[in-house]
């Protein structure tokens, strides 16, 4: 510490400034997307490449080129986000993370292709603005000084941004997309604004990186770069911009110092990987919120069902198999069937581990590939000893299971922690094997190549069979219950921590076995196989194969091995994750589109009715819930929707609000709103108070008022006027319901749909709720209330729904 030269500290501050900018961008993106955005580092690199080309090949002044590149990046980021936001808004954070990695690969491909398009400009350049300061033996130019102070710019941008309404809408959107729609928040606009601000910061960092650090214009951002940005963001708990800034600057100094002390790039990588793991470990455990659990589970259910539907379409399946067969035939012709199958077997086994971790623990198991590499190392070390091949397998599986269980420990530290530890592990493996230039793990070919391939293929089939057996077992179902709702599982006598550790230990064992199988099939692999970027390949394969069924890894491996042999090198890596992204997007359920209307034969709405919903049909996955229901409401009327449990009261209200797909006609004041989405209907004067999760848990009461555009004084009616700075998630269930109700009535909607407003309200509060509804009806609005516990004299009309028909 004492003999660290001042010049190294100065260089560390330059690098730290750039890391801080990247971390700020990640934190802002996370605040608005509730997921780690791995596309931002790639976006920054692409912006840096664009600015570099404009400066060195086109001869533009740096400032002009930089501004153009940053603006372009902001637009690209906003467009990409707006395009995928509606598809991914209900996805669990882990899946969104994979999707952002895919978007990142598209940006990275663009950045890497630029120098070729521009005819190979100068690899790097410097910008000094005529300034140069000597520190120790290092001379700092203007560009480097700019990089040092750049984080302050980031802080300023964030300070301005968070005061805007757009930022509030983006936060609301990220916490509960459906609820945000009922507040007339446009999902695409909210997502795009947040992404643009994060893109500006990431691109500024990228544009400054080339001249300040002497980086190459064509350098595509690898996981080793992401990890620099991830560690400070984790330390900031994905929320605090100042903490992310300070941690980023400090990390820059530490990374420079580590490299200076050891004189090896691998040491720097290892230190940074260790810091990320420590950052995850010191983060305070974050209890999962009920809302998150419900949203993620609902997403999984829908993906599961859409896949099941997909598999029942035989024509599509046959076409897919034919297409794959053609690609496989073409690609095996070039490398030979044995090598092709050997490569596919290792990949498929690793992808099986990813599928298992997803199905049983809901985690994105990036660690599968590094654990396979570690399994290969263990195999190589024990294969020639008296233990032999089977002894090597046992040793590898034991090591993999132990490391998998350690990953589960990290998983208690909040969302995406397991994926983060996997990235750190991948970088550490790359540093130890590839950067360090170590000998790749090899074994003496036992019984010739073809025999090894046969063993590997049998092994993969056994792994898939084991996966099927585990998921169907009682223990597997317990793991699924823990994954879906750990609190509920605990109260049913199932230990959540032990179950999750078991699931990830099993995934680790699968991954290590994949390393053994890969080595048996291909006894002398090339070193690059263990690069960190490869860690995404098994994940992408499992996603591409469909994640929620046992053959996911197998299917993905066949397709992606084909892609890989057809187009080797970087293009394959880009193609692989890009493909995974497309598949995720194709399967992700879209938000309810109320516009899908058939049946125009229904009579036009009567003139007097404020709301006229005629012959509404709606269902859940083939179960018809509403069968031609008619709901009309006159101005000033309070209509009660009655019916036994399961008769579709909630579905009817959601269909009218535009949150559930339905057919039939819905008209407000004589104007048909069928083709308008939920946020458009909210803007047209339809307010909706949902029965479950009626408020945004992480917004304060005052922010709710700002979002709804109502004065704080309306809170007096429900006794919340002294709690304006409380987070709505800390209010009791009844208080949340009243807050939602008062916000809805204060907006003076033409129509209020209130679901179960009276359940769970104390008698005194029920009187307040009834008064709010009566007052609104008195102002010539229509009110529709569903649910139980309505005061007897409140409603002036009623609609009765019938008991559900038994199916199956």
């Amino acid at each position, binding site marked *: 510490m004492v003999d660290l030269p001042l010049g190294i500290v100065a260089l560390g501050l330059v690098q730290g400034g750039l890391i801080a900018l990247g971390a700020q961008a990640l934190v802002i993106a996370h605040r608005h997307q509730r997921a780690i955005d791995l596309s931002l580092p790639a976006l920054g690199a692409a912006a840096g490449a664009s600015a570099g080309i404009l400066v060195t090949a086109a001869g533009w002044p740096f400032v002009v080129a930089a501004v153009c590149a940053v603006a372009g990046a902001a637009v690209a980021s906003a467009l990409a986000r707006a395009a995928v936001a509606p598809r991914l808004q209900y996805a669990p954070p882990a899946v969104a993370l994979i999707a952002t990695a895919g978007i990142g690969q598209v940006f990275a491909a663009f950045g890497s292709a630029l120098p070729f398009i521009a005819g190979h400009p100068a690899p790097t350049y410097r910008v000094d603005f005529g300034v140069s300061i000597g520190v120790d033996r290092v001379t700092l130019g203007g560009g480097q000084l700019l990089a040092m102070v750049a984080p302050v710019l980031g802080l300023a941008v964030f300070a301005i941004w968070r005061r805007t309404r757009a930022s509030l809408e983006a936060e609301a959107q990220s916490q509960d997309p459906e609820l945000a729609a009922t507040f007339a928040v446009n999902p695409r606009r909210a997502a795009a604004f947040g992404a643009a601000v994060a893109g500006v910061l990431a691109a500024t960092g990228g544009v400054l990186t080339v001249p300040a650090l002497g980086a190459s214009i064509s350098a595509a951002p690898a996981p080793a770069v992401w990890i620099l940005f991830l560690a400070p963001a984790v330390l900031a708990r994905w929320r605090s911009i100042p903490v992310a800034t300070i941690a980023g600057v400090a990390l820059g100094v530490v990374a420079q110092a580590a490299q200076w002390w050891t004189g090896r790039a691998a040491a720097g990588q290892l230190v940074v990987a260790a810091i990320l793991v420590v950052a995850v470990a010191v983060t305070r455990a974050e209890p999962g919120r009920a809302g998150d659990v419900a949203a993620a589970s609902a997403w999984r259910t829908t993906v599961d069902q859409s896949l099941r539907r997909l598999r029942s379409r035989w024509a599509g399946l046959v076409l897919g198999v034919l297409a794959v067969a053609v690609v496989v035939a073409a690609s095996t012709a070039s490398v030979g069937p044995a090598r092709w199958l050997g490569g596919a077997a290792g990949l498929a086994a690793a992808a099986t581990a990813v599928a298992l971790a997803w199905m049983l623990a809901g985690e994105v198991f990036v660690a599968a590939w590094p654990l396979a590499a570690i399994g290969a190392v263990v195999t190589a070390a024990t294969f020639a000893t008296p233990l032999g091949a089977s002894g090597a397998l046992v040793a590898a599986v034991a090591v993999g299971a132990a490391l998998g269980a350690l990953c589960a420990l990290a998983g208690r530290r909040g969302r995406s922690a397991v994926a983060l530890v996997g990235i750190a592990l991948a970088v550490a493996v790359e540093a130890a094997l590839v950067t360090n230039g170590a000998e790749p793990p090899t074994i003496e070919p036992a019984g010739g190549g073809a025999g090894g391939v046969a063993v590997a293929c049998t092994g993969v089939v056994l792994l898939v069979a084991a996966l099927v057996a585990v998921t169907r077992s009682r223990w597997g179902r317990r793991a699924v219950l823990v994954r879906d709702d750990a609190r509920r599982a605990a109260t049913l006598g199932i230990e959540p921590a032990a179950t999750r550790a078991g699931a990830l230990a099993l995934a680790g064992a699968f991954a290590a076995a994949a390393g053994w199988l890969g080595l048996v099939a291909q006894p002398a692999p090339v070193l690059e196989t263990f690069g960190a970027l490869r860690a995404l390949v098994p994940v992408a394969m499992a996603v591409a194969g469909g994640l929620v069924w046992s053959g996911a890894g197998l299917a993905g491996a066949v397709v992606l091995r084909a892609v890989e042999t057809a187009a080797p090198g970087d293009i394959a890596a880009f193609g692989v994750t890009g493909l995974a992204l497309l598949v995720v997007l194709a399967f992700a359920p879209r938000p309810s589109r109320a516009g899908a209307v058939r049946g125009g034969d229904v009579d036009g709405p009567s003139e007097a009715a404020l709301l006229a919903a005629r012959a509404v049909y709606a269902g859940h996955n083939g179960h018809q819930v509403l069968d031609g229901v008619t709901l009309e409401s006159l101005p000033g009327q309070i209509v009660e929707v009655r019916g036994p449990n399961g008769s579709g009261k*909630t579905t009817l209200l959601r269909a009218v609000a535009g949150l559930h797909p339905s057919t039939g006609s819905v008209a407000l004041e004589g104007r048909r709103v069928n083709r308008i989405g939920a946020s458009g209907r909210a803007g047209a004067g339809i307010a909706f108070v949902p029965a479950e999760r009626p408020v945004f848990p992480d917004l304060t009461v005052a922010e709710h008022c700002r979002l709804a555009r109502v004065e704080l004084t309306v809170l007096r009616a429900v006794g919340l006027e002294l709690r304006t700075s409380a987070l709505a998630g800390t209010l*009791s269930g009844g208080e949340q319901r009243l807050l939602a109700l008062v916000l809805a009535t204060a907006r003076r909607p033409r129509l209020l749909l209130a679901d179960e407003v009276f359940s769970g309200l104390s*008698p005194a509060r029920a009187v307040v709720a009834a008064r709010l509804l009566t007052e609104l009806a008195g102002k010539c609005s229509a009110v529709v209330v569903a649910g139980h516990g309505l005061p007897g004299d409140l409603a002036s009309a009623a609609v009765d729904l019938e008991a559900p028909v038994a199916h199956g």
Partner: protein
Amino acid sequence: MGEGLELEQLRVVVDGRVLVEGLSLTVDRGETVAIVGPNGSGKTTVLDAVCGLVASSGAIRLGGEDIHGLRPAVRAARGLARSFQTGAPVGTLRVGELVDLALPDGAAPAWALLASAFGRPFEGRRPVGELSTGQRRMLDVALAVGGTPVAVLLDEPVAVLDGRARDAIAARLIELAGGGTCVVVVEHDRDFVSRLATRVVELAAPDEVAA
């Protein structure tokens, strides 16, 4: 009958806010206690503390045995059952699979309860995620009262349920209490409370509003 569920000086503090302050309560075996109080008075928090889902201080005894330091799953294994306001967990599990996991020692009472609540046999093959709010709440209650727990804690069991389901739950709770189970119900519905409860405990309004 002997000691059932005993809470002594129970205190829960979350993020510096006192949610439950010095609550002492004894529920004898076979007794049904209703916890009532205004919204925000900490009713759900009391149940969470008894189950071990939030950290608390004070003593919690079940059947004379201190369970305060035990993990939630161990408390459940000692005979503590619980239903949630949110209903059964949404997810990919099917109804039958969930019932099977929750009640490994026989689920016949749970199926009978569901059948009488809905007036027809309940489908075991449907994914829980597809059920309506009321069906999920009913299922969750059935998981809690389908066995023969030492104590059962129900959080607003009937708030979103219709009359037939309420009757079915009430009948099952009377049956359980007759067998010596301690029943604790958090519920606003006065009819339901007065029908079942042998005692009503009222929690005071939250006083941190003034602070």
